């Protein structure tokens, strides 16, 4: 009965959603020139960044990104807080089955490659698809692999929180530096260089690298915390 009601309700919602979105591709937006044209224009002409998405994420809407990394930071902190127990047995895992030697050997081989790929992705975030979030996530996957393969593999919480905090602090400090140098928070105050060079785009790659570090550290921390959660 309840399911029927839910299906009916969802059908109505779905109808209106379809009604709102289906026409879009056909008629297009009512306002032809949105902010995107400005972004596409300025990314090339002023920021000298190839990846428009990166320029939007880090520069035009950099404030959002700052909020976003804060959300991630808060989630990591919240996870620790919610799962906090007074007697915290470090080193004991809930996932204790032994991995096969193949997985272990393979992980050991893959781990550096994964980390390297992650670093590559966030360093080249302003040039090619990718960026801090993506790279950070890839690195965290490497750590997840290691954590699953080796039940004695551990990462230092302190190191993680150092990385987390420093990356965050520097992000905000870059914002302040922009304010000091250019007048507004997070302003791109460094020389932008030439398009499609690794060292171009002013603070954009730097900030994205910071974001990459932060995301990697936080995701690893999250995985680590949850892996150490025991049924009681």
């Amino acid at each position: 009965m309840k399911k029927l009601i839910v299906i009916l309700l969802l059908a109505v919602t779905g109808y209106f959603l379809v009604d709102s979105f289906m026409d879009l591709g056909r008629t297009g937006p009512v306002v032809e020139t949105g902010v995107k044209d400005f972004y596409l224009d300025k990314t090339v002409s002023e920021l000298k960044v190839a990846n428009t998405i990166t320029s939007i994420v880090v520069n035009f809407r950099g404030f959002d990104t700052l909020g976003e990394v804060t959300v991630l930071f808060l989630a990591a902190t919240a996870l620790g807080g919610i799962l906090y127990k007074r007697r915290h047995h470090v080193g004991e895992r809930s996932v204790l089955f032994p991995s096969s030697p193949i997985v272990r050997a393979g992980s050991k081989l893959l781990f550096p490659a994964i980390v390297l790929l992650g670093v590559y992705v966030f360093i080249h975030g302003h040039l090619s698809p990718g960026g801090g979030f993506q790279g950070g996530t890839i690195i965290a996957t490497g750590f997840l692999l290691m954590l699953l393969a080796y039940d004695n593999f551990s990462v230092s919480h302190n190191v993680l929180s150092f990385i987390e905090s420093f990356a965050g602090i520097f992000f905000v400090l870059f914002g302040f530096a922009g304010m000091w140098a250019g007048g507004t928070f997070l302003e791109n105050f460094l020389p932008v260089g030439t398009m499609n060079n690794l060292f171009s785009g002013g603070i954009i790659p730097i900030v994205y690298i910071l974001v990459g570090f932060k995301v990697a550290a936080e995701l690893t921390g999250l995985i680590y915390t949850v892996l150490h959660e025991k049924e009681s």
Partner: protein
Amino acid sequence: MENQMFEILRYGIYGGSISLILIGLYAALTKRSLIKIVIGLSIVDGGIHLLLIAIGYVKNGTAPIFSPGFENAVDRMVDPVPQALVLTAIVIGFAVTAVALSLVIRLYRHHHTLEIDEIKNLKW
């Protein structure tokens, strides 16, 4: 022909994303297990992200990246803004899911069950 393809694609993407939203909502509203509810919410998130990406699509679009060779493709570039928004939204969705799962763990610790009907000590 090209137009037809585009129409099909359009229906596929919009219809697919909206169905994802509805499926996720259905799971969140009817499933008894907390984990399944969280999964449902994640599916809703996924659907919405797809929807956001879809609204930025233009016919024969290309990625909004000015790689060598694509410097003059501005007209064909898809809208980069929704992609940036989705990047943010994914991270936020991930954060919320992580918190939700940790709460599920806490609830399981406390109630020794994952049935949402049995977890209502607070009511009225």
